[in-house]
């Protein structure tokens, strides 16, 4: 039996990845890159789920991670087609230029 990786290391990695994703969402203008940052955040949370699942010795956390992956797939499909639709109308994916619904 190999020694186990301490759970706190994994949770720390998850925290760092999540914060990286948050910074990406806050700083990037390109809508596609904002989506990629959201994916980083979802992956960070999945890492927490899997870590806690191992800590608990149960599989419920892993099932939650699978559901997160499924919902992320749906979210990306719809989000990217919205980006395609916006690009068709405005010829840009820069979120500062997309201000049609701003009053």
């Amino acid at each position, binding site marked *: 039996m190999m020694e186990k990786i301490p759970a706190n290391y994994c949770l*720390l990695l998850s925290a760092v990845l999540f914060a990286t994703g948050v910074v990406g969402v806050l700083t990037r*203008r390109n809508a596609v890159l904002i989506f*990629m940052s959201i*994916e980083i955040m979802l992956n960070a949370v999945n890492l927490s789920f899997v870590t806690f699942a191992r800590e608990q010795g149960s599989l419920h956390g892993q099932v939650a991670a699978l559901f997160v992956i*499924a919902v992320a797939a749906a979210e990306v499909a719809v989000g990217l087609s919205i*980006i395609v639709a916006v690009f068709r109308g405005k010829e840009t994916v820069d979120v500062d230029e997309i201000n049609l619904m701003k009053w």
Partner: protein
Amino acid sequence: MQLLAFVITAAVAVAAAVMVVAEKNAVHAALYLILNIVSLAFLYISLGAEFVGAVQVIVYAGAIMVLFLYVVMFSGAAATPDSRDRLAWQKRIAVGGGLILVALMVRVLKFGGPRPSAVSSADGSPANIGSLLFTTYALPFEVASLLLLVAMVGAIVLAKGRRE
């Protein structure tokens, strides 16, 4: 030995994530995101979640990233640099906020109270996960399939555009 592997994989994951956020070219950012996803899949497998790791590679690196690259190529997002900041200091404030977020989460990790200890032990094999998915989580599983169907129809309707 396992700790060394963890440190290397974690360093790759963090570096790839930072490159996604910092990279100017969207195609390169997508490739870095694939690196991030694959290194996380390694971590899942080393944490005993073999099935989740496999799904991560197949669904994320396989399906989702192809969609991303397709949209990047289609929309010419690769060539568009970010426009100028409209708020002064926006990047610096965002990075500072991210650091504060990390500090808060580390604090919660350190002083967050005791965690419940292991209740049982089961490995993350497809058979175990499958039996859990089709018994305890049967209803959420069906709802997820409906969600994917709705997302598929919605994506087609949104991306189809108007045909005159």
